[in-house]
């Protein structure tokens, strides 16, 4: 594997044979390895790799009920499709469900939910939708109307995390599978270094998180390249929704994401190497982790008296939307760590709507 030079493209399609089966014509250059392979072999290696990840890391046990976090985007659509395929092919014995969160964003989520509803029928997976309106009494549209386009991603991210857990509890599932891919995880490793978060650095590469919490989450796409997911969805003609959130206005990608794309261009292996580095970091186990308790108000896991969602919600309901944002003193007066995620340093991250809530 030499570093890619980018002019392999012109060679493509000249009747070269797939380097795996040596029978069919190569149809694509595999992003992860730059091998020229045919479509069928691509499907096979793509699915087989995910199967191996699931088996080696024992992500699922037979008979488990698994919710797939489904946004209608490419990652979760491919995840739902591949998981239901593998479940049948390898007899995982899983009960799969689709779990969607309706943030109440007109012109974005309503459309993407239509996609998820079609997926429900296409893949035969029962769908559960939990909405911010039902859970919190507010839609994102209403929240944005009140607080404007600043910090709205903080609300959305905090609410989504809890909404997914609540939805999973309603479905009585054992685990939640999310569509985070290798690029996302590599980006998180870098971001945690850039912003000095050693505690998150130590756990952001774990394939299963929250095992001590109510519902563990796992990332079957941990080693799957974003580009391959797109490629898979494209060739399989999967039905997915590809518009960005209208409240995450900067369509630009963050520095870190762009850096990773640049790296991938000259050395595809770099994404896996970053994850490898993240797994290998020598972090002393004494690194302080916030103590986990439960929210006095809603009973959700929280390291403070009230959980973050309740603090934010209280602010909304009392007409003080700044409550719980930034370093301002809010209800949890005794808290020492300012909640500064999502504020400041925005330009280095790409996904702003809290999808990276490891």
């Amino acid at each position, binding site marked *: 594997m030499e*570093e890619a030079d980018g002019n392999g493209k012109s060679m493509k399609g000249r009747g070269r044979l797939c380097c795996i089966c040596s029978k069919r014509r190569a149809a694509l250059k595999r992003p992860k390895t730059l091998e020229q392979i045919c479509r069928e072999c691509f499907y096979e290696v793509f699915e087989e790799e995910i199967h191996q990840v699931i088996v080696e890391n024992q992500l699922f046990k037979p008979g488990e009920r698994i919710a797939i976090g489904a946004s209608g985007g490419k990652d979760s659509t491919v995840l739902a499709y591949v998981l239901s395929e593998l479940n049948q092919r390898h007899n995982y014995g899983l009960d799969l469900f689709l779990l969607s969160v309706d943030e109440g964003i007109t012109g974005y989520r309503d459309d993407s939910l239509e996609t998820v509803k079609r997926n429900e029928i296409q893949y035969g997976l029962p769908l559960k939708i939990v909405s911010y309106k039902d859970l919190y009494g507010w839609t994102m549209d209403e929240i944005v109307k009140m607080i404007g386009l600043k910090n709205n991603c903080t609300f959305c991210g905090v609410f989504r995390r809890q909404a997914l857990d609540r939805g999973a509890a309603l479905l009585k599932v054992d685990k939640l599978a999310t569509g985070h891919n290798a690029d996302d995880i590599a980006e998180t490793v870098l971001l945690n*270094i850039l912003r000095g978060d050693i505690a998150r650095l130590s756990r952001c590469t774990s394939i299963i998180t929250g095992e001590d919490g109510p519902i563990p989450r796992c990332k079957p796409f941990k080693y799957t390249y974003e580009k391959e997911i797109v490629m898979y969805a494209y060739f399989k003609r999967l039905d997915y929704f590809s518009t960005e959130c209208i409240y995450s206005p900067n369509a630009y990608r963050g*520095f870190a994401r762009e850096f990773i794309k640049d790296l991938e261009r000259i050395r595809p292996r770099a994404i896996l*190497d*970053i994850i490898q*580095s993240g797994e*290998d970091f*020598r972090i*002393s186990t004494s690194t302080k982790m916030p103590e986990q308790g439960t929210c006095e108000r809603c009973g959700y896991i929280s390291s403070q008296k009230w959980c973050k969602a309740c603090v934010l919600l209280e602010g909304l309901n009392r007409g003080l939307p700044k409550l719980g944002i930034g370093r301002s003193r809010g209800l949890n007066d005794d808290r020492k760590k300012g909640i500064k995620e999502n504020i400041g340093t925005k330009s280095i991250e790409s996904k702003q709507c809290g999808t990276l809530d490891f």
Partner: protein
Amino acid sequence: MACNASSCQSNCHRNEEQAQEEEFGGSANSISNYNDRNLNVCVKCKSNEPISGGNAEDGRFCADCFRSNLYGKFRLAVISNAMICPTDNVLVAFSGGSSSRVALQFVHEMQDKSQKNFDASRDRSLPVFGVGVAFIDERAIFPVSSHEIDKAIQDFRSIVSALAPPRKELHVVPIENICSSSSSDGRDRLKNLLDAISDSTGKEDLLLHLRMLSLQKIASENGYNRVVLGSCTSSIACHVISAIVKGQGYSLPGDIQYVDARWEIPVVLPLRDCLTQELNRLCHLDGLKTVELHKVPYSGINGLVSSFVTLLQKENPSRECTIVRTAGKLTPFHFNSIPEKSDSNTTLATQRRLKKYNLKPNESLSSESFCPVCNSPLNKSDLLRQSNLQNHQTSSDIFGAACCSSCRFQILPKDPSSMEHFYTHLPQPLVARAKRGGYGNLSLLREQIQDCLISDSEDES
């Protein structure tokens, strides 16, 4: 944190002052004159004018305070990590760039001070440490005209000889000397070696390791017991990111501490807390001459990382500090402190003056195995692969198996015959290192990975 707060405070501070002054403003001419002056003074001594231009960070100090602040960072690093003792003989790695120029200058100033103390003291119990300078001549690799390098070396000689006594020796050694004792043969071998590497990043990295080997060779042949590098916060931040990108997360913490004693001659990084802008500025202020000789822009991964870090630093002037601070929290290795000397040669006077603030006792004196190419500690999966090696392998195969996965990917040739070729051109110290660390202590290796082995049967004899 400190950088963050200080850069912020400078502005807040100024605004407050400004506001106050506006209240008083206009009441009397003499006061407003005074205030005008007060507005524009060094934040530390409050008397001199701050240096103009540059960024907010060093624009707050006057030239003297800036200089003493920078020297203070250097001195603290040296003292708190016991980098230099009075009995030491220190070799400063000098490239002609601003970082190593400042390193040389500061080491010199420190030596100068202890020389003065020595002259003034009655019992002369504290000897003065010795200083030498090394320049690695890389004209065999870089497209620089010989004339230019010869001229630069002349400049270096005059820089070094212009420093106040005690006299410092300048060692100029061509990089190819590491491959062979004869210059032309060494040049061929080096060229063959580098040509065998297809990855441009791998080429750059191997060169970096060879440079370190050369420094080690100079130091050990000339009786030095410390190697001082000019690595600063900015270059270390780049190393952090590129090591992560190359999958070297395990070995990374070993590279970025103040002290790196995995080498025969311990390597120290006294400028670890100084930014490259500060070092450039000092060179500019004090008229320290710098020569950018081997300034070929990085390509490949290293180039990408360095422009990424530059971009981040522009967006937030404390980003490089944050990167180094975060990576600094990763657990260092046992070799990241100066080995304790137990011999009776160190006098009581010396011992008393050793202030080791940061030195923690080594909890785990683990016996690491090291990659023969880059000398980084190997992680479990590397060790596992090495111990799974079957018998009847060629020595180049064994060498390859002893390397870390990063070097295997970006430096070692994939195809067996070119690997064989590559192996025959490797410098002797590298091959020796593989033999020392590799298969001499298999049982030791096995012990370290015991918990990962499935079968107990010992199939290798």
